[in-house]
């Protein structure tokens, strides 16, 4: 069902996003994300640098966690459905942390013109294994009508 097409009729206000639980953050993933994104800030790679900068230890790129949040929406509503995604980085994600992305539909809007897609607004958040929010955000996704 993971890549099944989701129609506007399937998405209701209050519907909860199936939680996306990501594997524990490992240094190698931060290194891979640095290469893939082009963000080589040493604060995500070099513990001595992070400590000297007053951050204690390395932490994950916020954009990696935002990528998880985007995945939680596209896994549910479909690749290509995201029209808008905005987040606030509320807490640092550290090595070993398990990030879980959650959310729900808070509004559903009919097409402005006859054939356009429906739009659904989502409230989104990601939390660590202690239940602390590391991201809060909102998204708008476009869904076709079955009719």
């Amino acid at each position, binding site marked *: 069902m993971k*890549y099944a097409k989701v129609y506007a009729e399937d998405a209701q206000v209050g519907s909860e996003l199936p939680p996306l639980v990501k594997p524990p953050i490992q240094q190698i993933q931060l290194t*891979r994300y640095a290469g*893939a994104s082009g963000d080589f800030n040493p604060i995500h790679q070099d513990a001595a*640098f992070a400590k000297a900068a*007053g951050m204690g230890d390395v932490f994950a790129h916020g954009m*990696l966690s935002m990528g998880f949040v985007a995945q939680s929406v596209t896994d549910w509503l479909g690749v290509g459905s995201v029209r*808008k995604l*905005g987040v606030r980085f509320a807490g640092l994600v550290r090595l070993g942390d398990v990030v879980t992305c959650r959310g729900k539909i808070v509004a559903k809007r009919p097409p402005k013109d006859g054939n356009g897609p429906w739009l659904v607004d989502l409230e989104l958040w990601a939390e660590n294994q202690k239940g602390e929010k590391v991201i809060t955000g909102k998204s708008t996704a476009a869904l076709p009508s079955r009719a």
Partner: protein
Amino acid sequence: MPIQINTAIKGKEYPAYPVTVERGKIKEFARAIGDLSPFYLDDEIAKAGPWGDIIAPPTFPITFRDDRADTGTMLRDLGVDIGRLLHGEQEFEHFKPIRPGQTYLCRSRIADIYEKAGKSGPMAFVVRETTVTDSGNDVVALVRGTTVVRL
């Protein structure tokens, strides 16, 4: 003593730069996130899909960067060391799918700079907006990022 930053760059527009999206870069980015959707990774499955090819994940435009308009340039303009940065907020608006092989034009500007007291001391917030257009001059994506500087 908090450091001073150069707030005079508020409103500054950086030189527009082109980015050609590489197929392999889309796949590398999706794999780094651990998002294994075939619409990002599998040319054959994606070919039969709604776009006729793979497309990029929603946060992919964060990879659009240029030596004259990247975070390093902004840091030099602000007079700030990279170790003081935190990512505060990020937003993407998408109007068209981002496709491999396409060349896009990126225009970045410093939309706002403001200072505020944070939990752990004074902070500056630098808002950078990038408009991504395609060869037909249609806006494909808008990217808005807020960088927090620990002063």
